[in-house]
């Protein structure tokens, strides 16, 4: 190892210059080698120092980038309203077969309020139909009125879950075994499955509800009633 090595070491480590001691004897030569080792240690120390500093800087820099994040909360709002109103209207807010002076042999009373292309909501009843001469007075289809602020299309499923219901004596449903059968409501009412009803927002839409009532022979005089569910679908 020679002084050149020492000088080389000194040159390549510009921040820390090595002290130069004697250089001609063996001892000096040995010393020179030690000096180089020390140089290497110093060099390594410097590199470590710089590396540590750089790592620290990078780490701190990364930490700062994370620390510079912020969460801004933006409010979000909505107001829900539902303007659709369903109501029964008319002089008798129900499907009303009125008073029936019944043929003792029984009869079939028809209230035809069915939908047509021109009147998808159906039409008010003019005259109830009979098959055996019974006299019907005061019959009236029900009027279901739909109002909404926005445009809707309405289609009604009548007698949901079946095709007919029984009307029974309103006073003595057990003692009076006579049962009147209401059927064909879908076919004889408006806004049915075949012809839905468009409802213009702000304007009421009326749906007429009729049906066919089968009165058996020998039916007792009484007021017969029944309820059935309908499903109003908004398309």
């Amino acid at each position, binding site marked *: 190892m020679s002084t050149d090595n020492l000088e080389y070491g000194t040159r390549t480590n*510009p*921040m*820390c*210059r*090595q*002290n130069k001691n004697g250089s001609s004897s063996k001892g000096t030569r040995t*010393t020179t080698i*030690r*000096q180089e080792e*020390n*140089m290497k*240690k*110093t060099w390594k120390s*410097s590199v470590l*120092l*710089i590396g540590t*500093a*750089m790592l*620290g*800087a990078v780490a*701190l*820099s990364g930490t*700062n*980038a*994370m*620390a*510079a*994040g*912020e*969460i*801004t*909360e*933006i*409010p*979000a*709002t*909505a*107001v*829900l*309203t*539902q*303007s*659709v109103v369903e109501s029964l209207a008319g002089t008798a807010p129900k499907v009303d077969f009125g008073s029936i002076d019944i043929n003792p042999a029984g009869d079939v009373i028809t209230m035809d309020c069915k939908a047509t292309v021109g009147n998808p909501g159906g039409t008010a009843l003019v005259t109830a139909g009979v098959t055996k001469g019974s006299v019907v007075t005061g019959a009236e289809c029900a009027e279901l009125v739909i109002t*909404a*602020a*926005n445009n*809707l299309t309405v289609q009604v499923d009548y007698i949901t879950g079946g095709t007919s219901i029984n009307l029974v004596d309103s006073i003595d449903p057990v003692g009076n075994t006579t049962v009147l059968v209401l059927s064909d409501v879908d076919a004889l009412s408006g806004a049915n499955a075949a012809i839905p009803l468009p409802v213009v*927002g702000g304007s009421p839409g009326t749906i007429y509800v009729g049906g066919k009532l089968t009165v058996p022979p020998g039916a007792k005089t009484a007021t017969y009633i029944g309820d059935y569910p309908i499903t109003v*679908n*908004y*398309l």
Partner: protein
Amino acid sequence: MPAPRCSPLGRLLLLGMMQLFLQFVTTSASLAGVVIQETPIAFGTIDLHPSGDTIVIAAEFDPVPSPSATRSVVTGAHSGLITLAASSTEEVHVDISCPDSVILSQAGGAQLTLRDIHKHSQCNDSGIVLLQGDPPVRIRLGGELVLRGRETSGDYSGAVPILLNYE
């Protein structure tokens, strides 16, 4: 043999480099943007169709189209907005992260889910660049409400957390 020592010049250089690193770190800390405006995401008043509807504020587009509904009537709706500007002379890179959904609540306890916020907003996970002197950057925010038609009427509100990560 004594350990080698740094010369005054070496120490000075070393200190200089350290100061440079420190300055770098300090400069990083000062890089930031400023939120100068916030506007809520408003779905306005929704006259909900009984069979339900999906109300969309498609703020991913510019300009933002009118909030859309298939069957309901929506009035007074608009997209949300964050306006950002640089607060230093240095170029600032900002990552903008939006959630996918948040809950909007009503006083009675009913809730709506505001969905697809990320999809319908101008969030940018890969970031934007702010430069001092440039016009402020506008980040528009939207989302959609999927309504079944049987939700409770009333006023709903919530908060959309937007993460702004300055680099």
